[in-house]
């Protein structure tokens, strides 16, 4: 094992962990969703990078080509991309609703408002 043979795995892993970090550490809801998107897209690399063969070509059958990359991960990830954008759209719709209700999209301020309301009038809910 040397650096070149596993480099793609490690970059994938870095992107995954960076996405996880943004989701946990950042309080802004839109930034959290961008982080979630990075987390999702890192998985694309995890699936597709191992399917590549150096010297091969895209899996479109034609005369004169023998080596093709693996088509199955491509199919799975095509589905994942579309599901990813559906998740993003739903998340953003939730953010817009939260903004309407709380007038902020910072997690800390939302929790502060919730806390203030609970201590002010604990039984009027």
């Amino acid at each position, binding site marked *: 094992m040397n650096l*070149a*043979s*596993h*480099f793609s*795995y*490690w*970059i994938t*892993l870095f992107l995954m*962990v960076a*996405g*996880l*970090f*943004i989701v946990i*550490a*950042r*309080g*802004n809801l*839109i930034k959290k*969703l*961008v*982080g979630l998107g990075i987390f999702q*897209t890192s998985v*694309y690399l995890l699936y*597709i*990078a*191992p*399917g*590549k*063969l150096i010297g091969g070509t*895209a*899996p*479109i*059958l034609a005369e004169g080509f023998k080596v*093709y990359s693996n*088509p*199955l991960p*491509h*199919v799975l*990830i*095509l589905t994942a*991309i*579309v*599901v*990813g*954008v*559906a998740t993003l*759209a*739903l998340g*953003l*719709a*939730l*953010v*817009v*609703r939260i*903004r309407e*209700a*709380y*007038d902020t999209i910072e997690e*800390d301020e939302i929790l502060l*408002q919730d806390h203030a309301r609970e201590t002010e009038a604990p039984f009027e809910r």
Partner: protein
Amino acid sequence: METLIINVLLAMMALAVVILARSRNLFAVVVLGGVYSFLMATVLVALDAVDVAMTEAAVGAGISTVLLLGALHLCKSEEAKPIHRPWLPLAVACGTAAVLAYGTLGLPAFSDPQAPIHTHVAPRYLAEALAATGVPNVVTAVLASYRGFDTLGETTVVFTAGAGVIALLRRRKKNGERRPAETDFPGERQP
């Protein structure tokens, strides 16, 4: 040479994500997200996944960026300063990274023709897809023919998400045409 191109593009993606994580302006974050998606599409072309690259460029870099910009239009575009230092999330992320890195040591090397991914299901698809479906693009053949039910399920997911978005963003016109954002005290719903 091919490996070098892929590795340089991957390093650029990592760089884009580092800048994105440090940036506090949400507009810059969204644009960097678009840059990241285009880099991802380029890497996918280099990895011979042309169908995925096209979808990623159109959906990941196009539609996602437009959706995020639309949401930014409705919200503030500056992120507040964090109250506490992110030591705990950093520790969680580093711990996860360490475990995953240990896991990669058992994986086959990049582009190893003897790896299980290249010796099991794929050769059958490549050998039989043209005769079985008549479509030379194997990805299309698998997507629409062999695994057509997956694609049907995907459509269901998109439909559900669309219904959810409409349900969330529909304007409620109760209490004399007042929208929730215009209540006197933010966060208080009219009874």
